[in-house]
C-alpha cells in the first residue's frame, strides 16, 4: 500500500523546480499545461502578531484592503478589472503571515500579474475604502459576538497565551477595529509586504522563463523591508484549568489544548502521526470512535497540531449538549491518558502511517492546492524536497518516536479547557 502511494505521489507535485528571477526572487514551480489556468500562492512573513498591542485586527484589515484600490484604480475600478477577466485574487492574514492567492485564465495572466503587483506595491488605502472595510469588519465581529464556537475559541486563546500576541483576537474587537488608523495599515504594509519577505509558489500553464520575469515584475520591485517586531517564544498556559463562558444555548462548545511540537521540530512527524491516531481527521481516530461512534456524544470531535512561529500546541474541539459536557470531557481525558500510557498498538501505528502516506497525494489534485501546499512548506523552511521526502519520514516513525512525542504533547495529561454554553455536571 505504501509503495503504491509513493508512486502516486511521484507525479507532478514532487517535481518541484526552483525558479530564480534575474532580480533574485525565488519561487517554487510546478508547470502543467493540462488546464489553461495559472495559480499563484504567496506568504509574507509578518501577520497579526505584529499588530499594535492595543489594536488587534490591523493585519486582517490590511489583508482586506489590498484589493480595495491600488495604483491608478479606485476600489470599484480595481474590482471591475478583476471581474471582467474572471481573475480571482484574495488575501488573508494569520498570526505570523499575510498571504494570498491568484488564479487566472492563461489568456489574462499579464493583466492578473499587473493587478497583483499593484495590490501588493501600491495599495491606496483610500479613506472611503478604509471606512467601508472597517464597517464590514465590525459587522462581522458583531455577527459572531455570541456564537458559542467563536466565544470559546477567543477565550481559549486568551487563557492559553496571556499577554502574548497569540492571545489576542487576530480579527480584533469592535473597539480595536474602530481605533485602527490609516497609519497603522501603512506601517504594517511597509513591514510585511516587502522585498525578501515572501515565499512564492506557481502552478499551471506558465513556463519558467515567463515566471521569472513575472517574479521580478510583481515581487522584485517591492520596497526594502522595515524590521518586524520579534515574537517571543511561548507555550500554552493554564493547563489543568477549566473555564466556562456563559451563554444561553442548548449545546456547549468545548475547546481543549495542551503542548505541541512545531512543524520545524524533528519530532513533528511523530507528533503528527500520534495526533492522527488520537483525533486526526478520519472516522478511525480514537476520539471519533469513543466520543461519537460509541456514545453519540457529539457530531464533530478532533484534535490538530497548531504550529506558530513562536508557539506549538495540540488543540482539540467538540460540542455536546449541556447535560453531557462532563461525560465528554471525561472520555477525552481518559483516551488521551490511555494513549500516553499504553501507546498505540503496532497495527494502529501501521494503519496511521498507511493512511498518512497514502492520502498525501490527495492534497495535490488541484493547481490551487498544490500552490498553497508549496508556499506553506517554503514558509516553514522545510526545503524544496520536503514533499518528496515527507512520506519516508512518516513511514520511519517507530513506537519509540511515538512515546517521545506523547511525552512532549500529552505529557502529564493536564488540559486547558474552555466551555461556551450552560454546561451542567462540570467538576
Amino acid at each position, binding site marked *: 500500500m505504501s509503495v503504491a502511494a509513493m508512486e502516486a505521489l511521484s507525479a507532478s507535485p514532487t517535481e518541484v523546480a526552483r525558479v530564480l528571477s534575474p532580480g533574485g526572487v525565488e519561487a517554487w514551480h510546478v508547470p502543467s499545461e493540462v488546464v489553461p489556468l495559472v495559480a499563484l500562492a504567496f506568504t509574507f512573513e509578518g501577520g497579526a502578531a505584529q499588530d499594535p498591542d492595543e489594536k488587534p485586527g490591523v493585519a486582517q484589515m490590511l489583508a482586506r484592503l489590498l484589493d480595495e484600490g491600488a495604483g491608478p484604480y479606485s476600489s470599484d475600478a480595481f474590482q471591475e478589472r478583476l471581474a471582467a477577466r474572471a481573475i480571482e485574487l484574495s488575501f488573508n492574514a494569520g498570526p505570523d503571515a499575510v498571504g494570498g492567492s491568484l488564479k487566472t485564465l492563461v489568456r489574462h495572466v499579464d493583466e492578473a500579474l499587473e493587478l497583483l503587483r499593484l495590490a501588493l506595491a501600491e495599495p491606496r488605502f483610500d479613506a472611503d475604502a478604509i471606512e467601508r472595510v472597517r464597517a464590514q469588519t465590525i459587522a462581522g465581529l458583531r*455577527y459572531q459576538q455570541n456564537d458559542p464556537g467563536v466565544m470559546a475559541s477567543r477565550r481559549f486563546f486568551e487563557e492559553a497565551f496571556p499577554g502574548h500576541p497569540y492571545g489576542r483576537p487576530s480579527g480584533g474587537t469592535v473597539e480595536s477595529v474602530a481605533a485602527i488608523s490609516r497609519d497603522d495599515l501603512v506601517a504594517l504594509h511597509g513591514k510585511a509586504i516587502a522585498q525578501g519577505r515572501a515565499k512564492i509558489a506557481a502552478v499551471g500553464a506558465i513556463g519558467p522563463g515567463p515566471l521569472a520575469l513575472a517574479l521580478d515584475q510583481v515581487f522584485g520591485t517591492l520596497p526594502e523591508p522595515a524590521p518586524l517586531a520579534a515574537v517571543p517564544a511561548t507555550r500554552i498556559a493554564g493547563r489543568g484549568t477549566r473555564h466556562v463562558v456563559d451563554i444561553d444555548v442548548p449545546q456547549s462548545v468545548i475547546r481543549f489544548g495542551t503542548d505541541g511540537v512545531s512543524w520545524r521540530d524533528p519530532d513533528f512527524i511523530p507528533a503528527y502521526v500520534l495526533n492522527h491516531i488520537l483525533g486526526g481527521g478520519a472516522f478511525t481516530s480514537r476520539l471519533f470512535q469513543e466520543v461519537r461512534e460509541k456514545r453519540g456524544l457529539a457530531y464533530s470531535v478532533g484534535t490538530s497540531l497548531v504550529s506558530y512561529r513562536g508557539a506549538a500546541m495540540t488543540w482539540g474541539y467538540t460540542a455536546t449538549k449541556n447535560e453531557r459536557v462532563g461525560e465528554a470531557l471525561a472520555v477525552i481525558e481518559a483516551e488521551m491518558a490511555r494513549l500516553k500510557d499504553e501507546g498505540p498498538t503496532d497495527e494502529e501505528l501501521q494503519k496511521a502511517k498507511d493512511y498518512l502516506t497514502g492520502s498525501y497525494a490527495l492534497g495535490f*489534485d488541484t493547481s490551487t492546492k498544490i500552490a498553497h501546499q508549496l508556499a506553506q512548506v517554503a514558509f516553514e523552511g522545510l526545503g524544496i524536497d520536503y514533499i518528496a521526502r515527507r512520506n519516508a519520514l512518516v513511514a520511519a516513525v517507530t513506537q519509540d518516536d511515538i512515546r517521545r512525542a506523547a511525552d512532549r504533547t500529552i505529557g502529564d495529561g493536564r488540559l486547558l479547557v474552555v466551555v461556551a454554553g450552560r454546561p451542567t455536571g462540570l467538576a
Partner: protein
Amino acid sequence: MPDVTGAATLRTEAAPFRQTEGGGPEVFSFTLDNGLDVVVVPDRRVPVVTHMIWYRNGSADDPVGQSGIAHFLEHLMFKGTNRHPAGEFSQVVSALGGQENAFTSFDYTAYFQRVAREHLETMMGFEADRMTGLVLDEAVVGPERDVVLEERRMRVETDPAAQLSEAMAAALFVHHPYGTPIIGWMHEIEGLNREHALTYYRRFYTPENAILVVAGDVAPDEVRRLAEDSYGRVTPFGERPLRRRPREPEPRAARHLAVADPKVEQPTLQRLYLVPSSRTGDGRDSAALELLAEMLGGGPTSYFYRKLVMERGLAVNAGAWYMGSSIDDTRFSVYAVPGQGISLEDLEDAVDATLKAIPAEALDADSLERAKTRLVAETIYSTDSQSSLARIYGSALAIGETIEEVRRWPADIEAVTKDDLARVAERFLVPPRSVTGYLCKTAA
C-alpha cells in the same frame, strides 16, 4: 464525516453545470443491465480517482412525519453489512490512504471516496455491497440518532441565523417539502427509528435509482468492467422508485417574519423568492436567473453592492444567489447587512427601490458581459478539480438533467439577453412570490 449539504453549500452548487470552452472535459456514460447509470470523467494529471455513488432521493422525499430520514440513513450507511461489519469500510478506506464522506441534499444523497487509482475496485466492491446489504443493529441506531441531534444542535439550535433560514424556507414553500430542513425537525428526528430507516432504504437504494460517477485517472472501459463485476451483480428492483412531489400553488401573499434573539448583535435582512429551477423553467428562464443573481449580487462589482454599499452606504454587505439546480421550483435570495444605525425597515425600502430599477439601471452591457465571463470562467476553473467535476455531473444527473445539458450550460449562459433578464426579474422577483426575514435582537 457524514454531512448535511446545508444552504451554504447549496449556494455554491447554484451554478453547477460547467464545462471548458470548446467542448469541456471528455465525459463518457453508459447504463448497466440492472439500470445503474455510470458517468466517467477522465483526469490523468494525478493517479487518483474520485468514486461517487448518487441516489435519486433526498430530504424532499422524506415520508410525512419522518423529516430527516434521508439524512439519518446517510449516517447509518456507515454501520456495516453482513459481509463487512460496522467500521470495516472506513478502516479499509483509511488504511489505503483514502478519504471518504457523504452528504444529503433536498433532491439526492451521495457517498464518495477519493483514493489512489489502483484502489477503485476495492471501493466499488464495498459501495455496491452496502447498496442493498445494510444491516442495522438496534445498538448502533440510538447513539447515531444522538449524533444527528448534536449535529442539529450545532448547526441550528445554537444559531439564530440558521433558525431564520429555516423559518423563511418553511414560509416560502407552503406545500412543497423544500420547506422542511434537510436534517429534519428536532421533534421528528427524536422519533426516527430502525424500522423507518430500513423501510426508506429498501424503497430507494436500488441500482435503477443510483448513478455511479468516477472522475480521475481511469479509462471508461476499465470502469465499465469493474462496475459490471461489482454494482452489476446487485439485483435490480424492477423499476426506479417514484418520487411524489406536490407542486407549489401560485403564491399570492407577500410574507414577512422575524427571528428575534438576545444573542443577535448584528441584524440582517434576507429575502427569498419562489422561482423556476433549471428543471421547471421555460426556455432561458433558469440561465437568466443565474446571470441575474451574478449581476445583482455576485460580489463587489454587483449592482446591489454598488448601490447599497458603495453609493448609499446603507449596507455593509449585500448580495444575491440562486439555487438553480433543483427538481422543483426553487429559491432566489437577496440579502443585505445594514450599516450602523440603519434600520431593517429602511434597508428593506432601499432594497425594494433597487429592485424596481433593475431594467433601467442594472442591466448595462458591461455588467452583463462581466457576469457571463465570470460564470463561463468558473466552468474552466472547475476542470482543475476532479472532485468538482464529479459533483457537477452527479448532481445534474440526480435531478434529471442530461450530460448534454451540462455541456450546453455555457452556451445557454452566453445566449441570455438583456430582455431575458428584464423579463425574469419582472415576472419572478415580485412581492407575492417573496418571503422577507429579519434577524434582530430582543431584550434578554
